């Protein structure tokens, strides 16, 4: 505020006296008094405005100045549209990339789970020696509930069932989850409408009740509130809909939840079975993971002691629910966050570089301003306003890019990214973008602005922008910035290169089957209609024959699992190599019809393939995968050996090994072979089987007929999960492909920005040296000399950047370890490739300015002095 202020009245009097004096003078000059007064007023201008300016000035000074700064800055930016557009677009790329990645991080990693106090919720499982995680046995769970001390409550769920819903127009495959009645209460989520299971519903033989999920409610019932009290016919049983469950996260893909204890008396709910049940616990406040695991170990020891046969070797453990959900995606997101940060820094450096290039022409303008009384801080503020305007406009555009990017990411449905629907641009993301924009504006603007205000008045006004110490230091600074930019671009390039190499290796991994031209689908026979193995066998084989008869189908086969899909795992005992009880290995078990091996081109390495006698009633046969054979019959021929399903004292009749087939990746392309046993479907039928189909004509033409054949067998039987084996295998590396794709985009952006940066610096260098080049050429230097002068400059600066980048990439490559398959984070080929690529790009970027240098006309440069 001003130190003193006169009253408004005093000021008015002064102005009035001014007008009076002016009027007097005009009258003296011979003007009519009336006209003279009007003229005096007119000459004074707007009286009230002058007063306003005086009195409101101080109060509005801040805002007014800001607006003036903004107006001035936009004028300056409009004056150089090229610079403005490039800067804004560069920053938009950087800020947009960061905003997009942050919205993913925000939705996936940062946003709390939609449960009450989610930090106390854990997932629980059991373990066997050699297998760290297996599903929970129901009786073990009952013991946990009673004996553990660290939990408020424990629940179980199982999201793996599919049932057939009948009664609606078409039979429908429904994902059914079993949940103990306390599951939703434990999570702390109330149903959207209706009510949760009550105690009377979660018991064996209870009237059947169902909670449908929000998605199923929307899809099947158009979110109709009248759904309460309606019934669902699932696998021939009727369930009453009691409510619509709140959306859950991390509980699998489920359409309908039903009470678990309806199955309590099922055969596989005994102590020795682990039928796809997963534990969920709510820890008491303050309990650590270590305390929980100690408590579970204590209870497991008791269970082992009390059930030496069925629970031999059993252990238990768990981890935080939220952590498990993001465990797989976290390394990729962390790496991508650093990558986009690098992109933003490169963008900042680029704009800083542009600003420095402008500062030569700005220097005179600024000197002029200083000369007429603007202070350093005033100039600094003006420049920062300009920079912030660039940054904020870039940020706005960036948010637009991010919006499109996030839409794209969600639309791509990247495999393995949890909570996709939770990824959007919300307030937190917008605040993030705004903060990033402002920090960016200060970051890229401060250094050039300081450089610009460090002007020596006289020097700058005199200097016509060449050869002075100030320009030399600018050139040096720009060289440093260019090196920084090159270094960061190289880091991204190396990262993307490593992922790409890793991905190509992963994609080239042999799955063990030939997926080409194989379509797959699922058939699930409802237990109510097909209650026993005999009926299931007849039905499945009838369906198979019908499918095989479809015109265009060359072969079809039944299989209980597909490569890279979930497998059933059972304890196996090998003849001659029994393991101690509780230590029996778990092996994947797959039931197939005779056509399967040849359909997916699996090779029989030893023994025989299927024969027509491998049917029900004949001696049970089994084929081992190579890995299983090598592991459990080392140095022996396993053909003819016998194995037992279960522990060595299992009462089941033994299988005879008929042959050895080649290995197939059971879970992940990047994973090791676990070992698989193949058994004959006819000897061990099941109600849920996969159908593999090979056709001589395109699937789009075959599948409708296949569907008709299945419906012809049983009109209530849907054909589900239609896909191809190639697609299944492709999707299994979807997350890797996605990470590589996204980092690839960022690396490309970084490379382009770096190229622009190199171009800018070299163009500036040439412009600065055009005088010198002119003289050299006048003195007889040849073009090649000039080219080598410029190229030398490019190579020196880029070379420094590349060297720094290589070291930095190696130093940060630890971030990549978890993301790479069969590629070392310090893979020399990738590093060398990245370095060469960058040097090449730098040289290409320097071509135009170099050519311009060789076309310098000595006469012109000499004259311009």
């Amino acid at each position, binding site marked *: 505020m001003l130190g003193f202020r006169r009253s408004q009245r005093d000021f008015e*009097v002064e102005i009035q006296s001014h007008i009076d004096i002016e009027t007097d003078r005009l009258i003296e000059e011979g003007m009519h008094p009336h006209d003279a007064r009007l003229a005096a007023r007119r000459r004074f201008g707007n009286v009230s405005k002058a007063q306003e300016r005086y009195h409101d000035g101080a109060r509005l000074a801040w805002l007014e100045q800001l607006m003036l700064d903004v107006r001035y800055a936009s004028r300056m930016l409009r004056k150089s549209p090229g610079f403005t557009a490039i800067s804004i677009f560069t920053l938009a790329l950087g800020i947009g990339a960061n905003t997009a990645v942050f919205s993913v991080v925000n939705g996936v990693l940062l946003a709390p789970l939609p449960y009450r106090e989610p930090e106390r919720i854990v997932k629980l499982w059991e373990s066997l020696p050699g297998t760290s995680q297996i599903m929970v046995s129901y009786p073990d769970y009952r013991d946990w509930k009673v004996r553990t001390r660290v939990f408020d409550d424990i629940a179980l769920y199982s999201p793996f069932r599919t049932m057939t819903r009948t009664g609606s127009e078409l039979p429908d495959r429904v994902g059914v989850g079993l949940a103990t009645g306390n599951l939703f209460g434990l999570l702390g989520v109330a149903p959207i409408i209706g009510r949760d299971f009550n105690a009377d519903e979660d018991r064996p033989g209870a009237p059947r009740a169902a909670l449908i999920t929000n998605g199923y409610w929307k899809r099947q019932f158009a979110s109709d509130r009248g759904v309460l009290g309606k019934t669902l016919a699932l696998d021939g049983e009727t369930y009453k809909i009691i409510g619509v469950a709140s959306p859950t996260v991390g509980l699998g893909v489920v359409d309908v939840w039903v009470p678990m204890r309806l199955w309590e008396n099922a055969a596989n709910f005994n102590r020795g079975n682990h039928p796809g049940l997963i534990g969920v616990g709510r820890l008491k406040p303050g309990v650590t993971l270590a305390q929980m695991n100690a408590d579970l170990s204590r209870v497991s020891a008791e269970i082992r002691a009390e059930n030496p046969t069925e629970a031999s070797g059993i252990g238990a453990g768990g981890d935080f629910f939220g952590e498990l959900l993001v465990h797989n995606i976290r390394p990729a997101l962390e790496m991508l966050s650093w990558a986009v940060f690098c992109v933003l820094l490169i963008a900042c450096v680029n704009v800083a570089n542009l600003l420095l290039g402008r500062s030569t022409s700005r220097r005179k303008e600024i000197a*002029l301003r200083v000369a*007429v009384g603007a202070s350093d801080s005033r100039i600094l503020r003006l420049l920062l306003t300009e920079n912030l305007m660039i940054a904020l406009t870039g940020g706005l555009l960036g948010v637009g890019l991010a919006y499109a990017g996030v839409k794209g990411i969600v639309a791509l449905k990247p495999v393995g990214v949890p909570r996709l629907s939770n990824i959007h641009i919300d307030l937190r993301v917008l605040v993030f973008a705004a903060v990033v924009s402002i920090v960016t504006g200060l970051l890229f603007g401060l250094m050039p602005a300081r450089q610009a205000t460090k002007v020596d008045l006289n020097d700058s006004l005199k200097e016509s922008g060449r050869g002075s110490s100030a320009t030399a230091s600018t050139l040096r600074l720009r060289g440093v910035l260019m090196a920084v930019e090159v270094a960061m671009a190289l880091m991204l390039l190396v990262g993307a290169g490593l992922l790409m190499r890793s991905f190509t290796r992963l994609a080239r991994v042999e799955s063990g089957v030939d997926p080409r031209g194989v379509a797959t689908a699922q058939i699930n026979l409802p237990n109510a209609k097909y209650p026993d193995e005999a009926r299931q066998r007849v039905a499945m084989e009838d369906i198979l024959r019908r499918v095989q008869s479809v015109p265009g189908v060359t072969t079809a086969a039944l299989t209980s699992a597909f490569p890279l899909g979930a497998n059933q795992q059972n304890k196996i005992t090998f003849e001659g190599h029994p393991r101690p009880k509780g230590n029996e290995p778990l092996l994947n078990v797959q039931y197939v019809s005779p056509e399967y091996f040849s359909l997916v081109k699996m090779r029989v390495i030893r023994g025989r393939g299927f024969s027509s006698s491998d049917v029900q009633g004949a001696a049970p046969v089994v084929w081992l995968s190579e890995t299983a054979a090598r592991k459990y019959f080392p140095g022996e021929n396993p053909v003819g050996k016998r194995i037992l399903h279960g522990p060595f004292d299992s009462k089941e009749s033994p299988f005879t090994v008929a042959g050895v087939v080649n290995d197939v990746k059971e879970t992940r392309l990047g994973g090791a072979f676990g070992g698989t046993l193949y058994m004959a479907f006819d000897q061990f039928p099941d109600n849920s089987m996969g159908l593999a189909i090979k056709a001589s004509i395109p699937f789009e033409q075959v599948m409708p007929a296949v569907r008709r054949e299945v419906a012809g067998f049983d009109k209530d039987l849907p054909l589900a999960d239609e896909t191809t084996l190639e697609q299944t295998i492709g999707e299994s590396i979807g997350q890797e492909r996605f990470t590589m794709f996204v980092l690839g985009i960022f690396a490309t952006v970084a490379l382009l920005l770096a190229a622009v940066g190199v171009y800018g610096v070299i163009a500036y260098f040439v412009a600065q040296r055009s005088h010198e080049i002119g003289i050299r050429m006048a003195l007889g230097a040849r073009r090649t000399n000039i080219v080598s002068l410029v190229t030398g400059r490019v190579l020196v600066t880029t070379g420094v950047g590349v060297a720094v980048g290589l070291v930095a990439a190696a130093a940060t490559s630890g971030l990549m370890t978890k993301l790479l398959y069969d590629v070392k984070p310090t893979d020399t080929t990738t590093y060398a490739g990245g370095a060469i690529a960058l040097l090449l790009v730098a040289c290409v970027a320097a071509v135009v300015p170099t050519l311009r240098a060789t076309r310098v006309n000595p006469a012109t440069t000499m004259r311009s002095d």
Partner: protein
Amino acid sequence: MPTQDPYASERDSLLQGTLDLLILRTLALAPHHGQGIARVIQQRSGDTLLIDHGSLYPALQRLEARGWIKGAWGTSENNRRARFYSLTAVGRKQFVTETGRWNRLVESIARVLAPELAEG
């Protein structure tokens, strides 16, 4: 001293420095009221500089606030009550500084303009 100058806006940045200098120069000769200052500047510049009164009074306030000039109510030649401004000691010193600065600026601008003319 004011910590913030409400009129130091970009709008008159060029004018501001010069107008201040012109006012100081006018008052260095004799005290004047506002209308007198405007008239003197106008006359001395050969009617090329028409002073915007909307800028003049804020400039006077500013200079007064800085303590370079001081104002006092008096009577004009026509017996009108008017506020007369005169230079303070600080103002007089400032006038010398500002004049030097101005001369440097003019010289500098001339130098800037000269080579560019030659270039064209």
